């Protein structure tokens, strides 16, 4: 687990969260740039259109000005022609131009309404034009009345020359103004176009940078992720290995203990055979001695010593009896250890167990004892089925029920109740009795090997409950006890619903 924690902090300078935050920021920034660029591009394009409009406007104005000056020059030229030749053709030409000129001026005025300078020029031009036109008109009328007379002299022709040059000058000024405007507007348009280009290029560059950054981040993130996954896999494998190793260690240790118990109990048996054997031999040898003593007492009571009689008749048999009972007890203990160790080595074979039927079987086999002791055994309600090792489960429950029968409260008819229920983690069985109960101080002790509790008035070696608990542990369950002295006991056994088959069948 330590390795797992280190994984998050140490494998790279940027944590996953940082990278995610950076990526989000980059995406947001990119989106913002796109929006800004689109908006500014739209704005710039609109501005460009406006500038183009203005440039076109200038061109229109210039066109009108030039048309005006053309018309003006044509009127002047036509008048001259007429005055010189009195040709009607010139008169018609003059009239066309003269009528067009004020209209053109009006159009110019309308077009340049936004430009005070042009307006001023036009305002200046207006009276000049009308006076010029009047002059022209007058000279034309005069020429007409003179009718076919001699051509007008040069002085007459040139008499309004200052007016004409004034008009020409004004027109030139107007053109100059328009040219100035055109230049400004063209410059603006160019600048605008450059701005647009710059904006688009900048945005492109920024987006490119962002994408490169994002790609780098994503690649690094992916690399980190791969690294983490590899690390995780490695750690997991290590973990599994560690668990397997630990399990193997435990199994080995358990096997060792079982083998140890087995060997010890076996090797203890050998000397015990000798002790018992030679005790019996002693007893056998004692018989001729006793016979001899009896004979001596009959034939020569004088030499039959009191001490010898006591030794042969009471001390020897008494000693032999003690040796016998002790060795028998030792034999039982060794057998108990052997049985436990053999139980521990037995391979468990799970099968589906009808617990109702199983308990009925146990109760039937104990019926004789129960009747003898005036006790009744009740199985309450349906019992949940389990899948477990039949022999082990039978041993557990028959042991517990036997104990309940054995340790009944004297003078109170025994009543033993068996019940069971399913719980989320498995099943629980309860063996409740109204027997003599167990003092709280002994609740743990009674499960230990060779330990017993209460009055030692029943045969037994203190093996039953140790055996029961060892079996329950092997079955993957647990056992607890509720008991009060003189009130009775309830043993509560929880077992898994399904016993997993032994992984190691190395019995």
């Amino acid at each position, binding site marked *: 687990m330590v390795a797992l924690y280190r994984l998050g902090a140490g494998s790279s300078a940027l944590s996953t969260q940082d990278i995610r935050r950076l990526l989000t920021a980059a995406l947001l920034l990119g989106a913002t740039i796109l929006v800004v660029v689109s908006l500014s591009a739209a704005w710039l394009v609109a501005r460009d259109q406006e500038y183009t409009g203005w440039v076109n406007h200038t061109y229109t104005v210039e066109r009108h000005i030039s048309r005006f000056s053309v018309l003006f020059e044509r009127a002047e030229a036509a008048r001259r022609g007429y005055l010189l030749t009195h040709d009607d053709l010139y008169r018609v030409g003059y009239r066309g131009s003269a009528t067009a000129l004020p209209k053109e001026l009006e159009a110019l005025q309308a077009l340049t309404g936004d430009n005070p300078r042009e307006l001023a020029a036009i305002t200046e031009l207006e009276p000049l034009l009308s006076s010029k036109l009047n002059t022209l008109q007058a000279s034309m009328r005069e020429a007409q009345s003179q009718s076919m007379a001699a051509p007008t002299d040069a002085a007459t022709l040139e008499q309004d020359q200052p007016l004409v040059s004034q008009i020409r000058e004004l027109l030139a000024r107007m053109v100059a103004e328009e040219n100035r405007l055109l230049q400004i507007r063209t410059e603006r348009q160019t600048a605008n176009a450059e701005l647009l280009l710059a904006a688009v290029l900048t945005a492109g560059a920024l987006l490119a940078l962002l994408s490169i950054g994002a790609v780098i981040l994503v690649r690094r993130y992916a690399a980190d992720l791969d690294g983490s996954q590899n690390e995780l896999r490695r750690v997991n494998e290590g973990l599994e290995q560690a668990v397997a190793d630990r399990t193997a260690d435990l199994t080995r240790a358990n096997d060792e203990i079982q083998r140890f118990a087995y060997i010890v109990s*076996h090797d203890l*048996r*050998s*000397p015990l*055979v000798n002790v*018992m*054997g030679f*005790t*019996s*031999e002693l007893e056998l040898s004692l018989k001729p001695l006793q016979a001899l003593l009896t004979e001596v007492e009959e034939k020569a009571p004088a030499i039959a010593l009191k001490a010898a009689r006591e030794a042969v008749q009471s001390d020897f048999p008494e000693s032999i009896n003690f040796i016998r009972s002790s060795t028998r007890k030792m034999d039982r203990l060794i057998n108990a250890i052997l049985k436990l160790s053999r139980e521990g080595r037995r391979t468990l074979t799970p099968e589906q167990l009808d617990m109702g039927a199983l308990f009925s079987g146990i109760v039937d086999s104990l019926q004789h004892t129960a009747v003898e002791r005036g006790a009744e055994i009740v199985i309450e309600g349906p019992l949940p089925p389990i899948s477990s090792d039949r022999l082990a489960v039978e041993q557990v429950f028959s042991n517990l029920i036997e104990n309940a029968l054995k340790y009944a409260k004297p003078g109170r008819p025994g009543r033993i109740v068996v019940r069971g229920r399913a719980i989320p983690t498995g099943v629980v069985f309860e063996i409740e009795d109204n027997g003599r109960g167990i003092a709280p101080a002994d609740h743990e002790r009674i499960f230990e090997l060779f330990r017993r509790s209460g009055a030692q008035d029943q045969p037994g070696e203190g093996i039953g409950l140790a055996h029961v608990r060892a079996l329950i542990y092997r079955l993957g369950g647990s056992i607890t006890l509720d008991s009060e002295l003189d009130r009775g006991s309830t043993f509560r056994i929880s077992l898994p619903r399904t016993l997993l088959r032994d992984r190691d069948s190395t019995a």
Partner: protein
Amino acid sequence: MIEDDDGHARLIERNIRRAGISNTIHHFTDGTSALDFIFNGADGPVLNGPAMVLLDLNLPDMSGTDILTRIKSVDKLKRTPVVVLTTTDDKVEIQRCYDLGCNVYITKPVNYEAFADAIRQLGLFLAVIQVPEVVE
């Protein structure tokens, strides 16, 4: 008789004698000397004819089953009756001994009366058992 526990050996011998068997009993407490006698002893079974082997499985220097294998692998000895008399009552071990050619397998009872009884019966059994001639 190959038995590492002198007490057991003595008890076995006494009870066999009580059953009326008077044949010579050679007692060995380890496998090496026992095998040496069986194969090389002047009055051993290989050189001197019929015998019966009483074998304990828990020996200090080798396993009783090794001795059993050796005995049963030699032509001259393979019909020699072998009685395994041991404290081991492991089913696998018992099966293995019979597989290796052991003729009788007896678990030493801790209860002496039963033990003595078993040995005496073995003695009676030995009295009527027919031992094959050693193939010359």
